[in-house]
């Protein structure tokens, strides 16, 4: 029952702009949510999805633009303001009190009162009614944490109903649910939709988005790309909108992907059946001298999980690894580094920069860790490493003594690239090195990768921007739903072909 565009929107967000230091997270984005529809918000990491949600739930205040709910202009300073306007959120991590009972959680703050304070009997009766309206029959006196995540999420939705939510935001609700639980959740969502609740749904599972949504809004790099009825947006068109086509002048490195690779010797890295239960189904990867292997797939497809297993950041529970033709064990990042690997995480802030340390200290951290604390890098050597990479990568501002936290995302990324290059790796794993950074820095980083691989460095390159992957990589591993679904020679496939492959190909089928 797709919603009608003629229905006046319940939530109207117009010209929403939110800027963080150095980054425009949202740039004049319009978003409309109508009663009685399930509306999916799509976009890769850094597209601005979560920023938009946080603007709507009062976590962030907007720098410009307007938010109308049910016709009234609202300004959300706190999350309580948003709740007062009838907007409720159910997060991936359930934000309830796990140690309280189900009934207490549902009614928290709205407990019916009797003469002697809270009437606990009535609390549980009312809670049971709310749960029953969602088709749930639970013991309301049981502790919340005794239930599965799926049930906890449904309890969170019941709680939203107690708050009389007109708008329900579901942020990645299905990421830890199994198939049956997803069905149960979806039937509750459909029920609520039919009762006129406006539902904003965020998930990186394409199948689920197409199953539940009436409408899709796509964001990219903080900008609105488009709003479509589900029927008007085939999957490959969606993927294209999410990933975009970057029109930067990168002619100088355009042919890096077509370079011939000598694959006669032993691969620098060869992994067979590398996997971890519940995280990644076994995958095979090989990388040769001077080769760039791209990994393509949407967020959550397993691309990050795969390289983390290779690097020992997470422990694999199946598979074998050979480095330079010899069986090797990599159980932790130190061992990986000792064997010539380097890994730059996609999560720059949480897993990359050490924010209070200076640019110079961040650059030499990997090398210093390798040498051990007893052998401090002599000042002269340190200065020469730092100044070499400051120039080679064009880090701005060019003062290495300021804390890295003061740099823009793109420049932080350059410093991290320098950190890894300083360890002189044989294999460099870059997970989303160009995410959320400006076009100039993107080009700088790609150029450096192309140049280094030509000099013999092997690289595994992950990016949501498929054009980058095709431009740099000679081979592309394609992932979907935590599975390796194929491997392509990048000279045999163009952007549309790759998008089509990611969106539609069944496992084992051949690329066009």
């Amino acid at each position, binding site marked *: 029952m797709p919603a009608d565009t003629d229905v006046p929107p319940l939530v109207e967000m117009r010209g929403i702009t939110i800027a963080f230091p150095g980054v425009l997270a949202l740039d004049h984005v319009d978003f409309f949510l109508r009663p009685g529809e399930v509306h999916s918000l799509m976009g890769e990491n850094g597209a601005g999805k979560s920023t938009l949600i946080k603007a709507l739930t009062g976590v962030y205040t907007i720098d410009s633009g307007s938010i109308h709910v049910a016709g009234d202009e609202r300004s959300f300073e706190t999350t309580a303001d948003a709740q007062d306007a009838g907007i409720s959120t159910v997060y991936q991590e359930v934000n309830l009190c796990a140690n309280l009972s189900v009934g207490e959680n549902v009614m928290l703050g709205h407990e019916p009162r009797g003469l002697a304070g809270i009437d606990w009997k009535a609390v549980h009766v009312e809670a049971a009614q709310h749960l029953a309206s969602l088709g749930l029959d639970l013991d309301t006196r049981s502790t919340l944490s005794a239930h599965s995540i799926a049930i906890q999420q449904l309890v969170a939705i019941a709680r939203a109903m107690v708050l009389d939510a007109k708008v329900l935001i579901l942020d990645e609700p299905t990421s830890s649910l199994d198939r049956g639980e997803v069905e149960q959740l979806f039937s509750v969502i459909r029920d609520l939709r039919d009762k006129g609740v406006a539902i904003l749904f965020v998930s990186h599972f394409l199948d689920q988005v197409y199953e539940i949504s009436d409408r899709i809004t796509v964001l990219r790099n903080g900008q609105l790309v488009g709003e479509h009825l589900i029927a008007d947006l085939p999957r490959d068109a969606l993927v294209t909108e999410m990933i975009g086509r970057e029109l930067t002048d990168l002619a100088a490195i355009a042919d890096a992907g077509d370079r011939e690779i000598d694959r006669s010797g032993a691969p620098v890295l060869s992994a067979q059946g590398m996997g971890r239960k519940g995280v990644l189904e076994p995958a095979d990867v090989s990388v040769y001298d001077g080769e760039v292997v791209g990994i393509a797939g949407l967020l959550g497809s397993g691309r990050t999980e795969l390289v983390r297993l290779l690097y020992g950041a997470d422990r694999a529970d199946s598979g074998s690894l050979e480095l330079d033709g010899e069986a090797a064990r990599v159980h932790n990042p130190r061992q990986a*580094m000792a064997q010539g690997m380097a890994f730059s995480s996609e999560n720059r802030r949480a897993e990359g920069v050490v924010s209070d340390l200076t640019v110079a200290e961040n650059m030499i*951290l990997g090398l210093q*860790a390798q040498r051990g604390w007893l052998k401090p890098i002599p000042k002269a050597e340190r200065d020469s490493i730092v100044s070499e990479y400051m120039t080679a990568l064009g880090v701005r501002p060019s003062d290495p003594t300021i804390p890295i936290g003061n740099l823009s995302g793109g420049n932080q990324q350059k410093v991290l690239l320098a950190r890894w290059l300083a360890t002189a790796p044989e294999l460099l794993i870059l997970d989303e090195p160009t995410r959320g950074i400006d076009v100039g820095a993107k080009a700088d980083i790609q150029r450096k990768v192309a140049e280094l691989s030509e000099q013999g460095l092997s690289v595994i390159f992950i990016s949501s921007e498929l054009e980058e992957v095709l431009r740099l990589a000679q081979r592309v591993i394609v992932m979907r739903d935590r599975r390796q679904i194929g491997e392509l020679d990048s000279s045999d496939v163009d952007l549309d072909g790759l998008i089509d492959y990611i969106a539609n190909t069944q496992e084992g089928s051949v690329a066009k």
Partner: protein
Amino acid sequence: MKSLVKHRLFWPSAALVTLLVVNVVANPNFAKITVRDGQLYGALIDILRQSAPLMLVALGMTLVIATRGIDLSVGAVMAVSGAVALTIIDSPSSNPNSWGTVLIAILVAVLVALVLGAWNGFLVSVLGIQPIIATLVLMLAGRGAALLITDGFITTVNSDPLSFIASGYLLILPFAFFVWLAFVIIVGVIERRTALGMLTEAVGINPEASRLAGVRSRGIIWTAYIASGTLAGIAGIIYAANIKAADANAAGYLIELYAILAVVLGGTSLMGGKFSIAGTVIGVLTVQALDSTILFLGVPPAQSPVFFAVVVILVVLVQAPRVHRWGRSVAARFRGSNRGGKDDPPLEPAQPQKEVVR
């Protein structure tokens, strides 16, 4: 001038200097230093001498806090170390006035403290127990162990070499001052002339990024607790030497809290990461000066905890960035209203002020 104010040690130093000035104004004798037999005496010299135990403990605490940890067991470790040392010196077979006996006693006691520190480090870095809980174990059990070692009595000794450690003089200044100065320098050199300091900060600021960068965070955290235990052991000996007794209940009582206070006053964040050894030295001297102030101004014992607390609150407020901002905006408003009273339109000065607040 501006860069001086921005220096991270500016506000801690300002607090210390203010405290000293207040004392001198209240009683000029505070600054008086007399020379007797070529040795210096006076309230300021006493501060240098008496701060030795707290200085050593706070030094170790700084390293532990830098790793995002905390060591609550330092007081108990002091008690154990004092008990071990004095029991050895007091044993019937040894001569308490021989330097050999005393040195062996110190060595054994410090080794025991080192092992206790290593135990804390094991719990935190290998077993992953929260630091506050891990060190609480020893905080409670340590004093019990110290009581066992002294058979439940307060062991007293008369040992000249031991007394020298706490109250003797080297050249013109107290020996205890040289002890803490030596350890400040040793720790400073180890942390800042090797890469240990930087790696410790990296682990404290972002453990996951450090792990991915190949930093041996386990070893670094372990080292910090070992250092903390060892330094607390030395502090315990100085404390015992000062009172010529091993008092398992009183030795290092609440010193963990004073050490944390000193570290924070010195500008190291309890969130871990960036640490300043010079800052900790200033913090300890501030706490110690405050202690002397209470004695010197003759604050009655019943009121001294309240007095102490009030001054600590003032010192912390003086250092708080939010108070600085508030002070600036009040100053700006003051200037603004002065100007507004003359020629300028009254509303205009409010404009830049809003930006300051944001």
